[in-house]
């Protein structure tokens, strides 16, 4: 049964993908999401004041590449920075001369690197211009992408874990367990997330980790509701009865048989949730309670820009466009995914 269940899931996934591909909006959205994810991951190779590869004093090194992998959670802490230019106290630009072989990132400015070029309009040197203390906006936008994508995915990862667990448990167990979790879902749905986060920042340090955790702890309710509904529908199906008859325990039935069949509607919610998490992080950083200066995020770049709106409007467009694009892309993907999963849209061609 297990093998057949998974086989069904693979067939279902293949069918969903085929139908997803027919929705051009979804494909465009998916393309943008992939570009944003790649930008987020490879940010040090795209923008930074650390060389991608260089030969200094006869030795080759790849500080930006090393830095890229050092940023990977868990694994990164075991990787040492490339010396000397991966160290925070060493300025590569002042050490490397024209005689050295250097491959700089496309945007050769660090996201926190200040300069005397304040409020420069977009140019061939500074693609999006500079801010009030001479930081390159393009570089900050690229590194801000990492923040937005990380918040979106980690926050919704936490929300998914909680939503699937509680929704699945409520749906499978039914009875008082279902009643209890349903009330809990209703209560948490009522939480005003933004104000909750603002309140929490009074006690906890306003960091990206705290923001992700709070978003995750409050945005799981719609995932739980969908999962509960699907579990309620599926738990009386024949394949579940067969699994139960063959001696499978409740946990095994829920995880191996019900969850693969119930996850599709939740996926749509998760996709929309990522967009909402990105918006939330931007709003928080805009208020000054999200990602803290000098670290860049789209929200805090927008805040800096907003103050200068009347006399340096060039700073406003990049973060606005990025937030708009990311939210639109995730919504397009979610919309297309919903259509692809829903069998009632089988005959539709777009």
């Amino acid at each position, binding site marked *: 049964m297990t093998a057949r269940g998974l086989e069904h899931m693979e067939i279902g996934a293949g069918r969903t993908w085929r139908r997803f591909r027919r*929705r*051009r*909006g979804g494909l465009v959205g998916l393309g943008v999401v992939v570009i944003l994810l790649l930008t987020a991951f490879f940010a040090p190779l795209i923008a930074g004041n650390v060389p991608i590869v260089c030969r200094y004093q006869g030795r080759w090194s790849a500080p930006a590449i090393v830095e890229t992998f050092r940023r990977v959670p868990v694994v990164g802490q075991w990787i*040492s*920075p490339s*010396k000397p230019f*991966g*160290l*925070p*106290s*060493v*300025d590569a630009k002042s050490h490397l001369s024209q005689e050295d072989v250097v491959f700089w990132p496309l945007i050769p400015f660090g996201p*926190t*690197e*200040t300069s*005397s070029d*304040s409020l420069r309009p977009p140019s061939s040197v500074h693609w999006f211009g500079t801010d*009030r*203390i*001479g*930081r390159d906006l393009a570089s900050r936008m690229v590194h801000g992408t990492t923040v937005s994508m990380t918040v979106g995915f980690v926050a919704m990862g936490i929300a998914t874990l909680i939503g699937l667990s509680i929704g699945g448990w409520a749906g499978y167990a039914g009875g008082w367990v279902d009643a209890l979790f349903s009330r809990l879902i209703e209560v948490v749905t009522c939480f005003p997330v933004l104000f909750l986060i*603002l309140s929490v*920042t*009074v006690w906890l*340090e*306003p960091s990206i980790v705290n923001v992700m955790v709070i978003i995750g702890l409050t945005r799981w309710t719609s995932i739980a509701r969908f999962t509960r509904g699907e579990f309620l529908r599926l738990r009386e199906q024949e394949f579940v009865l067969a699994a139960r008859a063959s001696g499978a325990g409740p946990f095994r039935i829920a995880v191996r048989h019900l969850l693969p069949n119930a996850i599709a509607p939740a996926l749509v919610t998760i996709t929309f949730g990522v967009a909402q998490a990105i918006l939330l992080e931007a709003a928080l950083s805009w*208020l*000054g*309670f999200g990602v*803290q*200066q*000098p670290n860049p995020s789209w929200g805090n770049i927008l*805040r*800096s820009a*907003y*103050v*200068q*709106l*009347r*006399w*340096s409007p060039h700073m*406003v467009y990049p973060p*606005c466009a990025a937030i*708009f694009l990311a*939210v*639109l892309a995730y*919504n*397009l993907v979610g*919309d297309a995914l919903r259509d692809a999963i829903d069998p009632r849209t089988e005959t539709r061609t*777009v």
Partner: protein
Amino acid sequence: MRVMFGRYRTFLALLLISACCGGCRRDLPETNTPDEGGAGASGNSSGSATSGIATAADAFVNPPWLFERAPADSTKVDWDAELRLSLRGNPNTLNPVLMSSAVEERLKELLFDYPFIFDAKFRWSINPAMTESFVESGDHRSATLVMKNGLTWHDGAPLTAHDVVFSWEQIMDEDVPARSARGGTDQIAKCTAVDNQTVRFDFAEPYATNKWGALFAIIPRHIYEVGKTDDPTLARSKYHVTHNRSPIGNGPYRFVSWESDDRIVLERWKDYPGRKPFFAKITLRIIPIAQARLLAFERGEIDEAELSPEQFANGSDTTSFRKAGVKGLGSHWRFNYIGLSGDGSNPFFADRNVRRAVSHAVNYDRIVSQVFHGLARRARGIFHPDSPMYHDGIDLFSFDLKLAGKLLDKAGWAIDSDDGWRYKTVEVGGEKVRTRLTFTVNLAQPSTTSPLVAAIVAEDLKKIGVEMKSRVLEWATFLEHLRNREFEAFMSAWNPPVDPDYGWNVWHSTAYESQRNYVGYADKRVDDLFAKGRKCFDHDERMGYYAELSKIIYDDAPYVFLVNSPILWAFDHRLRGVEFSPRGPFMFEPGIRNWWMPVSAR
């Protein structure tokens, strides 16, 4: 594709509308903050007020007519004019005994008069409208105030010595939340009414600052005595709340109405015993957001607005601004700083070398030019260079990362060749722990300049292997962290005190527990000099003590002294008689009481 856009048309339209609205919104974020340029008052007219500050040769900055005094020919004054001021927020109260914020102080100077005043140069004197005489005893332990006969409150009730004594009793009453008013007033040990016009002050110690202690808020006894039994706080009962929102004062203007979050209206008090007030009506518009204030000024809805450095430098260079008014620029004695907690609660800043290293790692010129648009000047310690307490021998910290690094090496914070950060083995709870030199600086939420300053400082500290993180806190929370001493560093600003002795509660070692010595600074020499200054009655000698202690404090670097932010203001074309004190255009005598509008500008 067409269908796709059809389906998303509504969504796209909504997003675009919301994006456009974001760009067009008038209620832009607040930029003026406790540590930002602008809120003080000082100086006099264009000349000396701007000394040391880079100014553009611009006819729209400090035009001479802005500072013109009212003419002797009263027919040239528009006595029917209305003055429209801006307020940064709602006052909590209009009871002067309970007032504690700058917003409330703005109302106090219009609604209330006191027996004593101080001018734009912070010179203390008696108020000729109220006071007949003030005589201190030869031993400086007591003084006698004789008030003028026939003084009244706005409601016609007589204002007597008993009101003064009642007010002092309320300020000293622990049940009354008069923390701000109590500072200095607590030097008076006893206050008694000799007769209806005479008050005797007995001082706890023969201090040079005693006369400042007698400059306290006066409230009408006949109003507040009635509700005192039911509500000893003067702040909670319905009776007191009502009177605190619609005060009976004795100043040149009387209260008319207060619409929360909108406006407070005052009118000329016809029976004012001093010079006739120049305006028939004063409306104070409550506009918390700096950009909104600027727009209101440009639309002609208010006659003055405080400007942030970027507004002064860029935002006011528009046709609409120049049609509305001119810019005022003055030298402010306030200083912005980064406070480093040296009370031993962190392993870094108890060490003088570390504090000095941080001071050497700050690019002051960049902060002045980029964050303050060249309008500020570098702070030179706790006293402004134009003040009589300034020490000429202060040797400013240079921006020298190599020297900063050496000082950190000397303090035992060595760079780890593996990761580039500085570490030291310190003792924590009896155990030796290898600790990284990383600290967090608290910033107050509404500020737009402090995150930029923090970004500049953090970038330079990184170059010497020190990590500085920043943490934005809402203003009340920021203050709570300060009061609880829960911080490693913080960025803020101090307004200039009218007397240098007020620095006692910031720098004296005894002020750590319950006053405003947040960083836990303690130096016996400074303590002794404060004590000497308090007891010295020779002006020059006294100023010498404060100058000496200011140099010691600067060299010890408990603060990173950043800049003296300037006074930046917008004034309507019709306004005349403006004057700056070291705090800005308000909160001194005559200050706003000298503002007037000519008939010709009606």
